[in-house]
């Protein structure tokens, strides 16, 4: 009896400790390279940490605690940085993510539906070629499109020249896609003027984004029972009516998580924006993440950058809580 309880006590103890043993390596490493830096970041966000303090860190004699000054400076746009306004960047950042998703998802669904048409020739070839943008790394996409939008030698202006030549205009087109500051549609987004560079980025990111949505939509389309369409066409519903009343509602549970994923991806799309416009011209296409990067790399205001990162964290948390709610809501919808 006593031996048995001794064994079971030992296994009991082992069972309680075991999960923590399995977690130990990850938490040890993350403690050093993730949690400690995050806390350190929070501390230095209240200091005026600059290049002079690099060598000694927090023990540097010149380091001063400045309270909420960094946060205050960022939010009230009193940072001595040209063309910086936090709320304009925030507004642009949200608009950028929303407008991307609003274009990619419908385009993906429409093209998936198009390729789902019965009797269409060459479906497989189209499907195989349409997913090519998904496999090209975004940094390559961004650099290639940056060259395509080059004012003098870029393919976009050359393509437009070819088209206008056909239409009877002889002059070559020289649109300053990435450098023109005057917004082409004034007052389109109040508070954050959208320059041509924004539209150029939208074109490039559209190329990159819709094929993924189309892949997701095709998967969902397959799960819609064909009987529904047959019943609808017997009842005399037109193709458009079938699309709106059968396809769209049944695609919703699959497309909303994909849209949420696309939103968070576009919201923090650092490499693409940095490689394509670098936030320019005049910070008109700056995202929160690219500005944070400028603070560290070019301005070297580590204290301000830390405060900015904490603000990004809070914004991301709010975005996450909202999108999580949306996904949850659609999950219960699809299960019901």
């Amino acid at each position, binding site marked *: 009896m006593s031996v048995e309880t001794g064994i079971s006590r030992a296994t009991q103890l082992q069972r309680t400790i075991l*999960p923590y043993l399995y977690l130990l390596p990850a938490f040890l490493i993350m403690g050093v390279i*993730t949690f400690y*830096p995050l806390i350190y970041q929070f501390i230095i966000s209240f200091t005026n940490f600059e290049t002079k303090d690099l060598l000694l860190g927090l023990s540097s004699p010149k380091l001063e605690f400045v309270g909420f000054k960094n946060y205050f400076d960022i939010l009230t746009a009193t940072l001595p940085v040209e063309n910086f306004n936090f709320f304009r960047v925030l507004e642009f950042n949200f608009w950028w993510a929303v407008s991307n998703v609003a274009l990619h998802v419908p385009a993906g669904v429409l093209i998936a539906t198009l390729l789902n048409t019965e009797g269409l020739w060459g479906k497989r070839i189209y499907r195989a070629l349409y997913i090519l943008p998904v496999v090209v790394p*975004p*940094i390559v996409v961004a650099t290639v499109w940056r060259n395509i939008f080059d004012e003098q030698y870029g393919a976009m202006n050359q393509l437009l020249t070819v088209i206008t030549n056909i239409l009877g205009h002889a002059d070559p087109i020289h649109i300053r896609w990435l450098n023109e500051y005057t917004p082409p549609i004034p007052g389109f987004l109040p508070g954050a003027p959208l320059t041509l560079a924004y539209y150029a980025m939208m074109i490039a990111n559209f190329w990159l984004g819709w094929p993924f949505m189309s892949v997701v939509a095709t998967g969902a389309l397959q799960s819609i029972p064909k009987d529904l369409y047959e019943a609808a066409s017997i009842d005399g519903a037109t193709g458009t009516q079938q699309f709106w009343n059968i396809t769209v509602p049944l695609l919703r549970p699959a497309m909303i998580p994909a849209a949420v994923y696309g939103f968070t991806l576009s919201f923090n799309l650092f490499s693409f924006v940095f490689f394509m416009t670098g936030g320019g011209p005049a910070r008109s296409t700056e995202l929160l993440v690219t500005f944070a990067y400028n603070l560290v790399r070019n301005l070297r205001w*580590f204290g301000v950058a*830390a405060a900015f990162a904490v603000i*990004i964290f809070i914004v991301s948390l709010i975005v996450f809580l909202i999108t999580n709610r949306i996904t949850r809501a659609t999950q219960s919808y699809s299960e019901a």
Partner: protein
Amino acid sequence: MISNSMASNNKNPIVRFLNMNTSRQTSGRSLPLWKQLLLQVVCILILCSVMFPILYIVTLSLSSKTTRPSSLELFPKEISFIAYKQVLDHPTGNPVSFIELLRNSITLSVGVGLVALFIAVTAAYAFSRFKFRIRETLMLLVFIPLLMPAVGLSTPLYLLLNNFRIMDCGKHITAIVPFFTCAGGAKGQLLFNLRDSLLGVGIAITASALPFAVWNLKGYLDTIPKELEEAAAIDGADANQTFWQIVLPLAAPQLAVTFFLGFIGHWQEFVISWLFLSQPKDYTLAMTLYNMTGQYANSIPWNRFAAMAVIVALPVAVVYIALQKQIVGGLTTGGVKG
């Protein structure tokens, strides 16, 4: 057994996308010709927009012209590999060879992928299989860093890694700062700065890669049926044996997927390496590609830039196409169940 059956059912969207069973086709109703032609025109227009940048860059890379393109060319008039040869021989203005750049990129992406995998797998197992008191809290702790973009974490890592240096104090004495400093506050000569090295960059990338790896693996482990482990437990296997001999082999496909997803991401990593590294010998291919565009790259012929873009894109495209089934499937299992 299980991995076989998972491989055979086409659960993943891309495979379904390509081989979709369009059962209505068998009903015999065919598209009216005018509609067929109209839809073909639409499909071909979409195809043109998809192929436009790809054809443009491939054509450019196969050109021998070192001047910038004065008119639009989408199909190569000549096939010349001189741009590729030049990029391979002499990728940048700095004395750094293509092999070194490639080695740096591979070291970072493969190294970080493997390290993150090894550290993450046990944690994912613990979260997936054990019920313990502070499980929810610890899970939240692991996933919170996912909300911080890599750019956000780069500031403190830059500062902390920058503190770790190896100094040569002269007289054959080496000091490892911050643990030892040169005697008498002598400045000494900097031999190694962890921040300005591939190792430091690797550590920093691992910091943002770990939470994703744990999340992705946990999502998959949750889908492995518990019955196998229960059977093993009845046969007298303890938790460790179950993990090493049953769960790990079953999770092998997902381990590979997580590794390759990491590889695709780290291959393109730019934020941290561009911020941390200052010596050309440490540069990666992504950094070199960035150097070849924009206002600072006026001297670089576009055919060389195009060749570089194709070279950087190639490994990712190959991995993606070879493993698209597993990658998209892995993303959705990890994502949906996470």
